C-alpha cells in the first residue's frame, strides 16, 4: 500500500465531504443525532455520542465554504493529471 501525500489529502477530503453532506433535517434528526437533541449534558462528562454530534455540527459549519474551494482544486487537478 504505497501512499503519497497527495493520496492522504484526497482521502481526508473524501472523509470531510462525507461528513459535510449529512443533512440536518432530513437525516440527523431522524436518527436522533440532531443539534437540538444534544443539549442537556452540562456536566463535564458529555459522553461519546454528544461529542460526535458536536464534531459533525462543527465540521459542517466550519468547512462548508473551504470545501468548495478545495473540491474545485481537486477536480481540476484530477481532470488535468488523471
Amino acid at each position, binding site marked *: 500500500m504505497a501512499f503519497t501525500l497527495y493520496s492522504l489529502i484526497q482521502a481526508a477530503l473524501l472523509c470531510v465531504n462525507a461528513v459535510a453532506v449529512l443533512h440536518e433535517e432530513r437525516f440527523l434528526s431522524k436518527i436522533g443525532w440532531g443539534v437540538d437533541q444534544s443539549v442537556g449534558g452540562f456536566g463535564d462528562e458529555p459522553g461519546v455520542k454528544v*461529542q460526535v454530534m458536536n464534531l459533525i455540527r462543527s465540521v459542517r459549519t466550519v468547512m462548508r465554504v473551504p470545501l468548495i474551494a478545495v473540491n474545485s482544486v481537486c477536480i481540476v487537478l484530477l481532470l488535468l493529471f488523471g
Partner: protein
Amino acid sequence: MDLPHHGYRPTKTRARAPPPSADPLLFEDTSSSQPAMNSQGYYTPGYNMAAPVGGPQTDPAGNNLFADPMANAAMMYGSSLANQGKDMVNKEISRFMPMNKLKYFFAVDTRYVVKKLMLLMFPYTHQDWEVRYHRDTPLTPRHDVNAPDLYIPTMAFITYILLAGMALGIQQRFSPEVLGLCASTALVWVIIEVLVMLLSLYLLTVHTDLSTFDLLAYSGYKYVAMILTVLSGLLFGSDGYFVALAWSSCALMFFIVRSLKMKILSSLSSDSMGAGASAKPRLRLYITVATAAFQPIIIYWLTSHLVR
C-alpha cells in the same frame, strides 16, 4: 564568574547580533561534564565585545567599508528591509506552528539520546516514568529522560529511509522513485496515526496535556524499532528479522503503554469519583492498548517488503 569557554566564543557574531530570545534553560550545554553554568554569563561577553570589536567596522571619519557613502546607505536600507521581511515571515509562521514549543522538543543532548535509545530497546528495568515539571512547564529532554522529543524520531525517520534504500539496493530493486515512495508512505502512516489518536482523545474527552507534537513524538519512536528490525534482517536473514521484530515490538509496546498510562489514564477529573466513571477508564485503557498494538502491525507492514 568563571567562564572557561570564553575564548572559544565567536566574538564577531556576538558583537552584532542581539541575544537570542529563547529561554536560556533550553539550550545550555549539558553534554560536557562541567557543572551547568549561569547562562547569563553567555550574554555578557557579547555586550562587552560590542565596544572594541565594533571599532574597526565603522571607523570615525570617512574610512568606511565601502568608499561610496551612497552604497553604504543602500546596504543599510537593504538590510533593514530584509530584517523586516524576516520578522514578518517569523510572525506568520509562528501563528501556525508555535516555534517555542517546537524548540522544546529539540533541546536534547547526547546523554539524553543514548539513554532514550536504550530505554526504547529495553524499557523493562526503568522505574520512574513520570515526566518531571519545573514550575508548571515540563522539563526539557536534556534534564528529564521521560520527556518526549522530536529529535530521535526525525533522525530515525531519515535513517530508516536510507536503510530502506540500501536494503532495496541489495535486492537490486532500487530506483530513486521508490525511495520517495517509501518515505512518503512512512510519513503518511504516522500522520494517520496521530490524527486517529487526536480524534479518539477528543471524542472521549480525555483532558490531558498531550499536544500534537507529543503524539507525533510518541508515534515517531517506532522508527527506531523499524531500523533495528531492518538491520538485523539484513545482517542475519529472515530469522534475525523475526527475532528482532518480536523483541522490538514488545519493548516498544511496553514503552508506549507505560508512557501513555501516565498521561491518559491518570488525568481523571476530580469530580468523576462516583457515578459515570466506570466506562471512562475502560475506554482510555482501550485507547492506550490499541495504540500499543498498532505499533507492531505497522512495523511489520513497513519493513517486511525490505527483507525478503
